[in-house]
């Protein structure tokens, strides 16, 4: 593998600038004449805008311009769209209500943008924004999805009767019903997957620059996918044609999904830059982020799992209601459907599965993909149900899972997915050994002696990454293809630039992508630059989410490297008068196998650019591009075990042990993978123990709008994690990679909730398991 090649724990190249405060984020960008934006936002969850009076505000010091939704509409800036079409089971298309970047007649959640103020300073913009008088006619609001479907509730969009966006299904209802009817045992549960705020460390920001000389726009933005942003802003929002719009996502401090989407602020700042004649910068503050970043999860489900007399699962029936908030965000429709219901087979051979999913408008900020996106919801539902079933059937949770594991591959599930490789038993065994599962009874007894209630729980997750085969997602309604592009540019002196359509916002691409080149050509990673995040530098790409950068983005790099290698070998063979097939690349040299003839890498590169002596007919230069379209999803899987102690007097849960045994396929950089798993588990523990978005159900105000009320996990909430890998290479991509970015957040919540419910002897507990809820649940059974 070499010290910097595939499989080496190379220290992250980018960390030097991040750790010394020299990262360059959107808010660090500054251009001559730049001014500051502040948004006037709705203080109401639901209201008609009767009038907007800007007269006083316009005269305030430093104000350059104040713009409202009617002007935006007059300039034909389009509605924000959802890019994935879902059809209801009656065949009708999903009911997409209009989302105006600036609301012009109705506001539908607290924080909905109404106007933009541009001023010399942020303080002046904010002062003027306070002086904009919006006269609202306040309407009743509804924040909970289940309630929003009931008769007589406030209606958000005229298109969507009863706030229902779609009523969709997957699988075979009759088969699932039959399995349940004929079952020896049916486990039934109600499952709530709590709503989360994404909280990347860097809040969203954007800088819109209109250049009147060129009639050209530049958008700096906190995006996970700048090319998709450009595509959507051109094709749907009518901001500018693609050749007149450059989108740059420089260093981005975390996304977790929330920076996939194109938000109103990016569109409005670009447009406002043209209207006001100055570059316009907007940076979100933390409370604004709680109010306006797309949230995650928020599912209510019922589940029935059928077993035969041998405890084999014979059928599964799931009914889910998903809250999509006030408007349909970019991928919102895909998350509770194709990223969720397709994973409901879990690691198990289940002959009949049926899922029904209804998505609902409410007076809350839009909900979209958040680390895991659909797979955490599926995993939580299944693994809580499996644990419950084991308790009801009186068998060990490990045995019940073992009995039902998929063991032969490829395995076609009844819900679209075709699992290509895996060894679920291996991860289960590794996790149980690492957790000393068999010693638990003794530990529990010891804890009881101290007055503590100890519990243990597991979860066996599977998820789908490497998103996604373009034709497949196209047939399922996606508005885009989900391939990736790469270009490898070898400079005349042999250093290399790699352009990738993936985007790094914390994942470490500058290191891991460079490791591929070091591995291939034996040159140091310091001689390799990874270029991403700029539509002027990288031609096209689909960005980073769904743990796709390794499986899809790197595969594109591999394809481009294959072409570069082939051409370099041709040149070397020509120069050394050898046969092309005898050329090998080792330690930065091209050699003729079995001889002492060698050429350093840089000389081959130089020869390509001097073009003095190239094979007849060969074009000068050494630069190749490739597009890679995956042929299947990838299927990371694993087993997590969590052990807790609950203090019965206060209901406080302490995590005393956390074990993760994962199959990520081949691994490029083990240290970075560990970091991804640690972060993922921290987020999963956050969801299960601490985090919860709370809207006041009466008036739709966001109560958890700061860290005073929204409980983020802190280091001392978390134990040390015991990690291991049981890797089965992915057969469908050249590197055998499955992806590791979301697994931690997917596998951990059910393991933790299974452990707590085991400790307290009450299965009736919802996330987050706050001390108060655990204490109440404990009292309910005592």
């Amino acid at each position, binding site marked *: 593998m070499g010290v910097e090649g595939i499989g080496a724990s190379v220290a992250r190249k980018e960390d030097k600038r991040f750790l010394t405060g020299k990262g360059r984020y959107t808010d660090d960008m500054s251009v001559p004449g730049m001014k500051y934006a502040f948004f006037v936002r709705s203080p109401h969850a639901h209201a008609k805008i009767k009038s907007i009076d800007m007269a006083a505000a316009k005269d305030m010091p430093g104000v350059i311009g104040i713009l409202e939704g009617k002007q935006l509409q007059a300039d034909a800036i389009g509605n924000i769209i959802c890019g994935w079409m879902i059809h209801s089971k009656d065949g009708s298309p999903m009911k997409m209500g209009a989302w105006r970047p600036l609301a012009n007649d109705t506001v539908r959640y607290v924080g909905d943008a109404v106007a933009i103020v541009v001023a010399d300073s942020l*303080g002046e913009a*904010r*002062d003027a924004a*306070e002086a904009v008088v919006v006269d609202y006619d306040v309407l009743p609001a509804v924040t909970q999805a289940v309630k929003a479907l009931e008769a007589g509730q406030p209606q958000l969009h005229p298109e969507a009767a009863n706030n229902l966006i779609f009523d969709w299904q997957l699988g075979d209802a009759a088969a699932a019903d039959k399995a349940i009817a004929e079952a020896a045992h049916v486990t039934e549960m109600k499952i709530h997957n709590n709503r989360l705020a994404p909280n990347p460390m860097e809040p969203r920001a954007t800088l819109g620059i209109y250049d009147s000389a060129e009639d050209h726009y530049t958008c700096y933005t906190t995006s996970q996918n700048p090319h998709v942003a450009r595509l959507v802003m051109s094709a749907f929002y009518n901001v500018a044609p693609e050749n007149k719009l450059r989108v740059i996502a420089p260093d981005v401090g975390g996304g977790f999904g929330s920076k996939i989407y194109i938000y109103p602020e990016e569109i409005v700042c670009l447009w406002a830059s043209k209207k006001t004649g100055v570059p316009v910068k907007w940076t979100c503050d933390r*409370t604004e982020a709680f109010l306006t970043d797309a949230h995650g999860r928020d599912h209510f489900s019922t589940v029935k799992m059928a077993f035969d007399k041998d405890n084999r699962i014979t059928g599964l029936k799931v009914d889910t209601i998903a809250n999509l908030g006030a408007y349909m965000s970019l991928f919102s429709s895909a998350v509770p459907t194709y990223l969720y219901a397709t994973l409901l087979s879990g690691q198990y051979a289940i002959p009949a599965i049926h899922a029904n999913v209804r998505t609902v408008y409410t007076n809350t900020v839009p909900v979209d993909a958040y680390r895991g996106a659909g797979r955490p919801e599926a995993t939580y539902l299944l693994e809580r149900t499996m644990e419950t079933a084991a308790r009801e059937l009186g068998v060990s949770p490990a045995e019940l899972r073992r009995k039902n594991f998929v063991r032969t591959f490829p395995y076609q599930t009844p819900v679209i997915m075709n699992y290509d490789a895996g060894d679920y038993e291996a991860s289960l065994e590794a996790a149980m050994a690492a957790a000393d599962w068999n010693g638990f009874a003794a530990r529990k007894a010891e804890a009881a002696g101290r007055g503590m209630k100890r519990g243990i729980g597991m979860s066996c997750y599977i998820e789908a990454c490497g998103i996604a085969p373009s034709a497949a997602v196209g047939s399922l309604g996606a508005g885009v293809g989900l391939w990736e592009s790469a270009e490898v540019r070898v400079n005349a002196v042999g250093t290399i630039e790699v352009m990738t359509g993936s985007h790094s916002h914390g994942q470490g691409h500058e290191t891991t992508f460079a490791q591929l080149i070091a591995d291939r050509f034996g040159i140091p990673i310091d001689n390799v630059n990874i270029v991403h995040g700029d539509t002027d530098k990288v031609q096209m790409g689909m960005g980073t989410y769904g743990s796709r950068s390794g499986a899809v983005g790197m595969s594109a790099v591999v394809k481009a490297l294959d072409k570069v290698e082939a051409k370099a070998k041709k040149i070397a063979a020509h120069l050394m008068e050898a046969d092309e097939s005898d050329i090998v690349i080792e330690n930065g040299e091209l050699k003729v196998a079995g001889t002492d003839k060698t050429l350093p890498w840089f000389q081959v590169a130089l020869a390509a650019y001097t073009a003095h002596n190239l094979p007849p007919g060969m074009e000068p230069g050494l630069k190749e591009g490739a597009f890679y379209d995956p042929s299947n999803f990838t299927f990371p899987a694993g087993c997590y075990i969590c052990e807790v102690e609950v203090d019965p*007097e*206060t*209901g406080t849960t302490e995590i005393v042990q956390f074990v993760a045994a994962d199959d990520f396929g081949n691994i490029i950089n083990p240290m970075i993978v560990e970091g991804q798993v640690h972060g993922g588990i921290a987020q999963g523990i956050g969801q299960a123990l*601490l985090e919860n978005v*709370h809207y006041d159900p009466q008036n739709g105000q966001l*109560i*958890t709008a700061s*860290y*005073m*009320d*929204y*409980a*983020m996990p802190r280091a001392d909430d978390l134990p040390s994690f015991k990690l291991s890998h049981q890797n089965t290479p992915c057969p469908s991509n050249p590197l055998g990679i499955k992806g590791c970015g979301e697994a931690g957040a997917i596998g951990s919540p059910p393991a933790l909730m299974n452990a707590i419910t085991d400790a307290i002897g009450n299965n009736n507990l919802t996330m987050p398991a*706050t*001390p*108060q809820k655990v*204490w*109440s649940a404990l009292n309910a059974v005592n």
Partner: protein
Amino acid sequence: MYATNYHRASSVQDAVRMRSAADESKYLAGGMTLIATMKQRLAAPSDLVDLRHIPSLRGISVDGTSVRIGAATTHYDVASSTELKAACPAICDLAHGIGDPHVRHMGTIGGSVANNDPAADYPAALLALDAVIVTNTREIKAGDFFTGLFETALQDAEMIVAVTFDAPAKAAYAKFRNPASRYAMTGVFVARRDNGDVRVSVTGAGADGVFRHPGMEAALSANWSPDSLAGVSVDPSDLMSDIHASAEYRANLVKVMAKRAVAAA
């Protein structure tokens, strides 16, 4: 934040004069509460009078059991004072549990007491220690000082100069942290004098802010042991309910924290 005028005072008289000169002025101590509130535009003082450079406001003196803590003394200084630790370790522990290191190095006892946040820690200590809040014009017993949620007996422009108390024989503070803010969701300070007098005060839980619990005080006066609290009931109807904790749950925490404080004292 709205624009404001900054003044640096060098003496107590200086500060009071500056503060009285402008209607909408405020004292600034650590700024951990005030600056954050101003940034959220929930407070808009025209003038700020900075108290951190008045030497007489800073520092801790201990004379036998008699303790004086200057109003501008930071939480860190209280937490780490060896003299104070010898006289009344409970208040050092309490200060050590406030916020995070940044907050402890900036925030002050005077600021905390003047602010009287219903979830703040110091009010519980001062009430249980029967402390005196010394201002530029008078001395106010803690029992008279904390008058409600974010309300105190301070008059306009009145300034806290110091806090004094007589260290008890035994004391301890047990805090149950709010999982989000890590302020007290319930904090109980217990103090026992040599003459057997016991005070139990509770922060973070009361619907009207910090309060004493006579039932627990009586039980502990009769028998200073955690077990003696078993039969005492805490009435939830006087307690706060919010998204983090119901009044019933807080009532339980009051008892559990009191027990733990007695055990630790």
